[in-house]
């Protein structure tokens, strides 16, 4: 009889142990879930706060820095938005669609005064094809040409070149190849703006990215837009979110720029 009682006790102890273990595990899992949920919540808050910082920067063309916590009036959120005008030796355009164009400011653009920066540029430059990447791009739907227009803010259009490697355009006057040196010093009066328009016959053209490099050693292109970086932290978890947005300076749509009868 005693032996039976001992066995029961052992079983009870084992069961209790198992139950305790399971219970404790359940408790721990619940606590972790709560913690993750909190972090996720804070992360969302942080992302939203960063986006708010971006939006605030977009709406304030003169701001160089924005306190995100201040604009949200939420003590659990902190962060900063910085706005930079980054000068680079080489600039890569966003994707330019078929029949679209990109306005490149050779002497710069002042977002505060909303004017083209006066000045001169006489640096050599190259325009390279970043996208499409295929060397055989001319053989298919990705064939395209680029019409390059140089404009002076005081005298108007002062020069045009055509990059037409495929070729797609009749006429070969003033043609360049991708990567060839284009001497802006040969353009008179000196231009302030360069507009690159993509001409692509195929409706399946995926778009082009172009890299404009200043070939003059040590020379930089002026900023082509505002680089906005928003960093925000939210909640006790102190989750940080960092978002970067490049907003170009004004772009004349090709539909508003090219004469169409």
């Amino acid at each position, binding site marked *: 009889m005693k032996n039976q009682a001992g066995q029961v006790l052992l079983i009870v102890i084992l069961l209790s142990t198992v139950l305790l273990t399971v219970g404790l595990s359940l408790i721990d899992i619940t606590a972790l879930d709560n913690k993750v949920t909190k972090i996720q919540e804070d992360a969302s808050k942080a992302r939203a706060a960063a986006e708010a910082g971006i939006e605030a920067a977009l709406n304030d063309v003169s701001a160089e820095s924005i306190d995100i916590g201040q604009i949200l009036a939420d003590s659990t959120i902190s962060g900063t938005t910085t706005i930079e005008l980054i000068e680079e030796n080489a600039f890569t355009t966003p994707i330019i669609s078929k029949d679209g164009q990109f306005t490149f400011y050779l002497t710069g653009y002042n977002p505060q005064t909303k004017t083209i920066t006066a000045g001169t540029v006489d640096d050599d430059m190259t325009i390279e094809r970043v996208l499409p990447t295929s060397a055989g791009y001319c053989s298919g739907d990705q064939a395209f040409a680029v019409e390059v227009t140089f404009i002076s803010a005081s005298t108007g259009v002062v020069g045009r070149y055509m990059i037409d490697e495929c070729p797609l355009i009749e006429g070969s006057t003033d043609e360049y190849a991708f990567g060839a040196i284009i001497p802006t010093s040969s353009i008179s009066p000196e231009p302030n703006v360069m507009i690159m328009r993509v001409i692509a016959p195929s409706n399946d053209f995926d778009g082009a990215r172009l890299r404009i490099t200043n070939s003059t050693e040590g020379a930089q292109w002026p900023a082509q837009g505002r680089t906005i970086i928003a960093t925000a932290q939210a909640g006790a978890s102190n989750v940080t979110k960092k978002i970067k947005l490049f907003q170009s300076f004004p772009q*004349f749509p090709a539909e508003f720029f090219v004469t169409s*009868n």
Partner: protein
Amino acid sequence: MKGIVLCFISLTFLFLLSSIPVQAQSCTSTVCYKDGCGPDGNTQYEYTQRTCTGAPGPLGACAYSLQSGAYRAYRTYTTLNQNTPLGWGCGAGQCGDPAGFGVEDSCSGGNPLEGGECAGGFPRAGGCPAGQYCQGCDMYAGECCNFVPGACQVVLGCSGGSPTPTPTPQPSCTLSCPGTEVSESEFNNATGGAGGGLGQRNTPSEKGVVAGASSSRLLAQGVGGGLPGTTTTQYYLGESVLSGNITFLGESGFTCQEFVDGILYQGPCPSPTLITPTPPGGGGGGAIGGVTTVRDSFDAGSFFLKLLSNLSFFKPIRDVLGLSTSQTLVQGVGGGEESGSLSTWQHPVTYEYLDGSNTKVYTALASSGEIIGGIDDPKSNSQSCSCKVGLSCPLSVTDINDPGSIVEGCDDQYCDFSVDPSRPQAGIPAQFTLMNNNGFRNFTIDYGDGQTESYPNAESPLIVPHIYANAGAGQQISLTCSNPGGNIKTCVRRATIYCDNTDPYNLPTPTLSPTPSPSPSPTPGPWLKLKDTSFTIRSSINNVVPAGATQYDDTSDTGVCRVNEPTNYACFSSGETGSAIVKSDAVDFGAGLSQRDWLRKDANYVINTLLTPSSFISYVKARKDYATITSLTQDQIQSNMIHLLQPDPPIVIITDDTVPDAIPAGAGAVIIIDGDLVIDLASSDTFNAANKAIAFVINGTLEISSQVTELNGIFIANDVNYAFDAAATSNPLKINGNISLSQSPTQQCNDVRQRIDPLKPSCFFTFDFVNQYVPVIDLLSTRTYDWSELTP
């Protein structure tokens, strides 16, 4: 003995020949010659040979050469034209002075052309005293070989074969004008059609000039003495402008003292250049033998002339003589020599003005005596030669407003002018727009036709009318602008005044290519021109640029069409032109596309429209600051602002410059209209004359009145009607700024804008970045965004 026999046979033969009249009409009284065949007023005889070997008739009888070599005898006054066929001065059945020869032509008038009492060698009214004659028979071999001009006289030795006193070679001259030499009849036919021409100018005495001209004089030389040197006229034809030299040839010691060139110069003759003594001519008098030809004599002279001065006298002189190269003119009958000297000079001249209709006749004259009453005065002198030039209407295409017309100055900052029409027509008012700046407010304009006007302290631009009485090429119009400080600027343009400017362009008629292409040549018609822009069109385009195209105007159409050809305006796109993308496999831009000729013609090319007026409205609402307005009134327009107007019904009408007037200089505005925009100006043909920066984004159709000829601004629309109130108009249209459509156009500008002048573009679109785009760069633009999350 043998010679005597031969001579006898020859004389007998000639006698027989001479006695056979070719044509004989009723001869009621014979006053003629040995052959008994003299004219009596209305009778004429023609002889196959020189048969009139008897004494000359007492009055009026004479003989002149026919080209055939025969001779025609006739009475006085009959020669209206010494170029064959000869004409009669007397009407049928009439005797005496012929009709049309009145008192002026009487012997007593001292008519230089008629030679006093014995006009042209014949007695005139009153005649000669009894026993005296003024008749010579110089061309009747062996008879009546003497002639003393200008006086009644006893007939001198005219007996057969008798040598006559040696005559004195008579001075004479020839004047040659620039142009194509023609006969008098050709000249009259060519120039006399309009405005009277020479038909009215030919006074009887002038007819006498012609009558007594070349042949008689030169024949006289040929026979060794001859008739007095009267006047000879040569005739030349040219186009609207004729430049060259008037060439003078004096013979036998002709002393040229007075000269008029028919334009401005009247004064002493230019200094002559002695060429060479003339070779002896004539022949040794007497008998029929001793043949000497005038032609031979002049050949020698011409040879020297050609060598020495590269002048072409031989042919004109021979033509005046009416000779063929093989024709023997006379035999040496009167003895004497044709001696003396040849002299020549040249006078540069340009004939370029017409008399307002179709022709203009200039007369140049060189004379040995005083020109009393001008070149048309028969009393002016007794020895002279002249030439006449007839011009026709200008046909060349010359535009006063073209830069190429500028002779001097013409800087619109100080002093310039334009003319409307730019090809003025004689007799039709032309509007002169006089322009100056910088205080040069005193205008003086010389219209180039002798009329001058002054406008002190005038406002610029000043529009003044002027009528040119005369058509012609080469008028120099001079505008002088001065300021109170005495500084003077001058603008001189060369103009052509047309007889008729409705179709002065002389465009070649389009013709079908005979082989092998079946397609016809493109037909020039109204055409569109661009400047400084790229071009796309979502359809084909009919835009044939004519060869020889001219500017739309001289203020904005200044871009080059071809490198190094600054005055070539024949292209579709000028200046810093970009590419043209046309949705067609076949397009013909005629004389030229552009200096770069960048073209993509592709029927499959679908222009990708990323941003339409409609989507721009959405973009603005999402991303831009803008103002919603309810009308285009001055109080609602703000500078440097995007305006959104959503009218109900969806149409807005602009009748004046209220909108641009509300925009300060240097600022800009964007007007978005969710509907149609109608531009129908009430009192102007120009919208936004001040060229304020204004961009219309029209989510509808841009409707333009046919009376509007100029729009300044950027016009973005779905469609456009370039003349909503007319099927077509001759009013051109210039859009300074830009125009761009988001869909295939219902019509093209040159479908409805059809300028009369086909050489000028009917539509002219210029890309104005500086004035129109720069001020609205932040308003009429989008942004691109490149987003990335650096910390996930």
